[in-house]
């Protein structure tokens, strides 16, 4: 169960927006202040530990850069919810240990709403608006990767 405040964005938030390429020569920590700056220059100040990143369709299209999920993780994002994801970004989120679920109703979520997500049941409760949405359920093997904190930690624990 994950509970946190929503930071809300629209459709087609691509990896060039999440991680502007001009700052990728910096470390993740240094580059984090430029995350999302093309659409929200205050993002890095605004995001608090435990916040949920909520977006519309085609989230994370573009580059294969794991820099994007690593930056969101560094800034404290606890979970990502979108109407739909681009393929590589979705896998990268799971691999770095950020739970990510699809939800058709992200359009009803507003910036600042308090959300409570049950990934095993596939339910998002919007505590601010007293609404409930269905979301994708995460299968057991994906939950194990997330619980371990990412694919690398999972592999270390499993001693594969």
């Amino acid at each position, binding site marked *: 169960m994950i509970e946190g405040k929503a930071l809300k964005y629209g459709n087609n938030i691509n990896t*060039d927006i999440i991680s502007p390429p001009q700052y990728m020569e910096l470390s993740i920590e240094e580059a984090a202040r430029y995350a999302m700056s093309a659409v929200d220059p205050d993002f890095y100040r605004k995001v608090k530990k435990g916040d949920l990143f909520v977006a519309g369709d085609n989230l994370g299209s573009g*580059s*294969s*850069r794991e820099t994007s999920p690593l930056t969101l993780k560094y800034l404290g994002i606890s979970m990502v919810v979108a109407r739909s994801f681009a393929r590589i970004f979705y896998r990268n989120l799971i691999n770095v240990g950020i739970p990510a679920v699809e939800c058709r109703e992200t359009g009803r979520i507003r910036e600042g709403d308090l959300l409570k997500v049950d990934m095993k049941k596939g339910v998002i409760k919007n505590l601010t608006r007293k609404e409930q949405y269905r979301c994708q359920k995460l299968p057991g093997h994906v939950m194990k990767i997330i619980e371990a904190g*990412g694919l690398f930690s999972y592999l270390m624990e499993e001693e594969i």
Partner: protein
Amino acid sequence: MGKTIAEKTIARASGEKSVKPGDIVWVNVDRAMMDDILGPRIQIAKQLEQLGRPVWDPKKVVIISDHYTPPASIHQAEIVKFTREWAKSHGIEQYYEYEGPCHQVMAETGNVRPGMIVLGTDSHTCMGGALNAFASGVGSTEMLGILATGKTWLKVPETIQVVWDGRLSGNVMAKDISLCTIGTVGHAGATYMSVEYQGETIQKLPMDERMAITNMAVEMGAKAGLMPFDDTAWFYLKRLGIEDYESCNSDADAQYYQSYHFQADELKPQVACPHEVDHVVDADQVGDIPIHQAYLGSCTGGRLNDLKAAAEYLEGKKVAKGVRLLVSPASRKIWKEADRLGYLSVIAEAGGVIMAPTCGVCVGLHSGLIASGENCISSSNRNFLGRMGSKEGNIYLGSPLTVAASAAAGRIQAAEC
């Protein structure tokens, strides 16, 4: 039931007799490619050491420094140095730098062959599908797993069939086919799928042109962009001295998730408008857009055929006042050949600036960023907000010919027929 190229290639790599879309299988990876920007420096070096595992097979690993060459800052120089030294200390003999954008170098060095599974830490790895290989982009952690084990899991994708028939007009190039297809399918229309390009128009395209199409399959969300194996692919590989591979083509009764049919005769030059690759219109519908920068280059639009088309158009013409035409051939090999054939001097005579082969301009890392209020027409593959520099700048994508014609006119326009 018939099978597609993707299904046949994944089946062979997994050791299964047959696979179907949706199956999740473990495959042996034939080539693992890393670049400088997303290579060893992102997680991989540190975590491989923590795992205490050697690279599974250094002969199957290729590392190419292309994004930060030539370096524009000390940070960039340090990243290239780190990448070079990491390759050396891990016994990876195929390390290249200053040779050009990785996908072109992979093809030229014979690292992409029919039937192979090629995975790379760059999303345009899908370009290798023009050579009938199943090629796709992966993130760093996935690459770490591949380096440690030589394997990864793949979900067998559905295949979207894209058929182009008919003849292209004189001012239309493969890039226009690519943009028109993306405009129709949509930027997420092929997410997690394989796109297979077929038809007589595709069959008649030279390899240079084919690569401009498969390169951009990821701009529809696709995992791979594939083309059938034929004489053109055979000849391309033969010239590299490569005859050892197992090609495959889709069966006549293969099952497609969706099919699109296009008529090449009706196709006009296309332009993708800011800030999405599927905002595609006919070039004559863009409106009056003055340009400040014209970029001819990248793994999408900097091959010999592209430079030839631009040189032929620009011969005897001049780049418009106030416009900078930046040219970055897609590899050092192409640079040399274009020089030998006189294309570079024609473009330089017209006012173009010939630069190193690099990813720098396309992804706004160095060598040609745009300022606020500036418009750029580019033969590269992405026009995302802020990609080439200022978020108050605009990137339009077009064919190399459209880039040349726009550079000469000072505003976006297609070459005359």
